[in-house]
């Protein structure tokens, strides 16, 4: 049976209204016959048929509007004409506009210091924070000259081996201190925290890590914290309520963006987010750390990176306290803390031994979840860390 389709008469024609059938069921048609009239935005156009046969059935009533490519009628080919091969017409789907949900462009809150690109590059190369330099260029912009001036000044100071006490750096750490104080006190005021702790055996994880690092160049060597981040991300897949925000009601988040607490050299912290940690491999997470930690310390983070975390991890690294109970970052509903890895006595099915162990803690917002959820999370986290190869 041959399908007679609504033809496309122009690249911009998307549909047509069948006004009148010129042939009825049972009529015979041959190549070039007018079979119907169709209304288009250009006016009424006669539609011709290119096949021979008897009209089996008219599928569309007069007056209906159909998209190009719709089957209008069925034609029974009486005898197969020379044209044996029937190419399949390409289905025409009209182009929908690609709608991108509005990306709310958050106002850049960074204080913008005017400096020429060259000056910025030189300052960065010499680890000089821009707010330490007085600009002499167009309306106060920092130029190459100004940077060179500071470098020269610092070399002089270096020689005298005195520690520079410029009040500007103090001011900045005060500013950071004030910001942290505000966030923490808001968190304690509004969020009823519950706290949980879990001791986790890291023997398998650390041996896997050592073997993994032996196969890697030193440049891409992995740190233990990478496994913690990956394990948290994997565990959160089963605990959506912990990967959420509280906005007079619990609102789970689709992406798993783990805020990573970075300690600044002269005090204070920054918490950039590792986006979609669940989708990243351990190597990609390590690369993300290599990017965000130095940028955090040089205060080069974009405000967007600081504001879309869905949960936070604070890790003591080695040589720190055994356990750390975090303060939740509003509007998040949980914070996970990893103490320092240390050799500890560890009992397992009755046997006592010395193992590399870490204390993992979870502080949860009791408005959003209960202790049971938190402890189940920590148990699964511990189990996931026993199978490092599958992280």
């Amino acid at each position, binding site marked *: 049976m041959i399908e007679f389709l609504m033809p496309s008469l122009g690249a911009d024609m998307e549909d047509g209204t069948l006004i009148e059938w010129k042939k009825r069921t049972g009529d015979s048609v041959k190549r070039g016959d007018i079979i119907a009239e169709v209304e288009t935005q250009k006016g009424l156009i006669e539609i011709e048929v290119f096949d021979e046969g008897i009209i089996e059935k008219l599928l569309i009533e007069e007056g209906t509007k159909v998209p190009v490519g719709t089957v209008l009628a069925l034609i029974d080919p009486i005898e197969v004409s020379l044209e044996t091969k029937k190419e399949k017409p390409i289905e025409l789907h009209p182009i929908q506009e690609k709608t991108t949900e509005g990306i709310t462009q958050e106002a850049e809150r960074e204080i913008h210091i005017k400096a020429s690109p060259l000056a910025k590059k030189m300052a960065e190369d010499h*680890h000089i924070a821009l707010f330490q330099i007085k600009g002499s260029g167009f309306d106060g912009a920092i130029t190459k000259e100004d940077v060179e001036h500071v470098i020269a000044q610092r070399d002089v100071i270096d020689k005298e081996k005195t520690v520079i006490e410029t009040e500007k750096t103090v001011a900045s750490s005060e500013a950071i201190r004030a910001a942290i104080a505000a966030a923490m006190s808001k968190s304690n005021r509004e969020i009823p925290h519950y706290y949980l702790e879990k001791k986790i055996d890291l023997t398998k994880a650390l041996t896997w890590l*050592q073997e993994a*690092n032996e196969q890697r160049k*030193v440049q891409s*060597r992995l*740190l*233990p914290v990478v496994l913690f981040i990956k394990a948290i991300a994997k565990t959160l897949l089963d605990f959506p309520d912990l990967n959420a925000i509280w906005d007079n009601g619990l609102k789970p988040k689709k992406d798993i963006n783990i805020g990573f607490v970075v300690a600044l*050299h002269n005090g204070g912290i920054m918490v950039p987010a590792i986006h979609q940690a669940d989708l990243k491999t351990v190597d990609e997470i390590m690369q993300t750390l290599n990017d965000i930690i130095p940028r955090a310390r040089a205060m080069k983070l974009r405000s967007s990176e600081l504001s879309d975390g869905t949960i936070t991890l604070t890790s003591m690294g080695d040589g720190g306290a055994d356990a750390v109970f975090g303060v939740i970052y509003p509007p998040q509903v949980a914070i996970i803390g990893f103490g320092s890895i240390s050799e500890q006595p560890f009992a397992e099915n009755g046997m006592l031994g010395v193992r590399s162990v870490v204390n993992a803690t979870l502080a949860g917002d009791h408005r959003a979840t209960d202790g049971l959820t938190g402890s189940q999370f920590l148990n699964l986290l511990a189990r996931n860390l026993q199978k490092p190869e599958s992280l």
Partner: protein
Amino acid sequence: MNEDEIKKNIFQLLKKIAPDTEPSVLKPDENIRETLGIDSFDALQFIIALNEKLGIEIPEKDYGKTNTLSDLLSYIMNKIK
């Protein structure tokens, strides 16, 4: 590459990853990381820098032998020979 040159390189690299500290004041047997407040992330950057600058590789199992300035120096000296 004699000892002084290696020491100069070490101070330079330490200065790079901990700009607000004074590596040159380190005593030979002081623990480098504790004195300069270097965390595990910075330590890894230091080891990477050593590899790129001096071409030597410190595997994880040797971390223990490089805690102080003198340990680090002797470790590097016999690695370079």
